[in-house]
């Protein structure tokens, strides 16, 4: 899940700007990481996507590189 798109299946170019949301096993918590490196934890996937796609608003990260 962390690599590039399956090469054989990709008919379109990956942009490298990937949003990732992990659901921590044993919890109800979602942990989101924006392509800019900013991270956010939430219990609600709707709220998570609102934060994620609000980039760059509120996306503060030590690893930010955009």
């Amino acid at each position, binding site marked *: 899940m962390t690599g590039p798109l399956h090469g054989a299946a990709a008919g379109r170019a990956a942009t490298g700007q990937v949003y990732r949301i992990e659901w921590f096993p044993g919890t*109800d918590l*979602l942990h989101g990481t924006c392509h800019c490196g900013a991270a956010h934890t939430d219990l609600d996937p709707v709220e998570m*996507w609102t934060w994620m796609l609000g980039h760059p608003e509120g996306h503060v990260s030590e690893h930010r590189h955009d």
Partner: protein
Amino acid sequence: MATAFARNQWYVAAYGREVGRELLGRTILGEPVVLYRTEEDDRVVALADRCVHRRFPLSESRLEGDRIVCGYHGFSYDTSGTCVFVPGQQRIPRTARVNAYPVAELDSFVWIWIGDPALADAKQIPRAPHLADPQWTTVSGMEPIDGDYGLLVDNLLDLSHETYLHGGYIGTPEVAETPITTEVDEAAGVVRVGRHMPDAACPPFYARSTGIEGRITRLQDIEYFAPCLYLLHSRITPVGQEAPSFRTEITYAITPSAPGQVYDFWAVSRDFAQDDAEVTGFLRDFNHQVVMQDVDALNLLQRALDREPAGYQELSINIDTGGLAARRILARLADR
């Protein structure tokens, strides 16, 4: 709420095997289309399925060579959609032409572009190479659903429903119990959802096709290339073992037909027991039953939604993380 159509995109219109010298009628994004294969060079032609004269369906007409002759008054069209004959007169009106749609045959599918033909680029078609690869054995079919195409996208992006809707077929308790990881490449229009079950019951779908009797490690990795192509890369192994490993590629093409109607193209490809006719027959019949469980459920769901007052509310939870991303991408593609 109806999911808007994204017009400037490639969609699967048919399997290549369905298109021949018999005229085939399909409705894609609300547009009636007639498909056939030319005598001259075996290529697929897709034209608007209504005669310019009195709107008779050309798919209910006949071929003369590579021309369609309207079954009502004999208006005849060449492969470019140009009318080349009208009955009883020499002058063919300049407006006597039907749309010809860009098409491409790839990976056993016939892809069609309904939107602006100037934007059609076949290199943008997402690939499913296993469908035409002799190393894989594939069973496939198509079922129309009387439901919004967004309902089918929702269904396929959240496989936790396997536990409840497809229990005893492909679902086991572990599917719904196992957390997912979601990755979205928003600009590329790709959603990936992974669900990795280290120790799960083996559902009949896999037990009977692989012969595994005990518990399995089951990996489900979805790639959804919005709006049409969905791939589920499935891999199972007996728990605690690296081998044998059984790979199955489950492919869907989700083609909106009309508002509230969708074509559900489905295929199951396997890299094991490729020449075993019994396994092929089992997977064809068994998966068809699974597809029909979805068809029945989505038909029912659409009828229920149609009776809801406007502005009804839904509730989304963690299992919907990928489906929510797909909805946003579809809305963006429809705005283009």
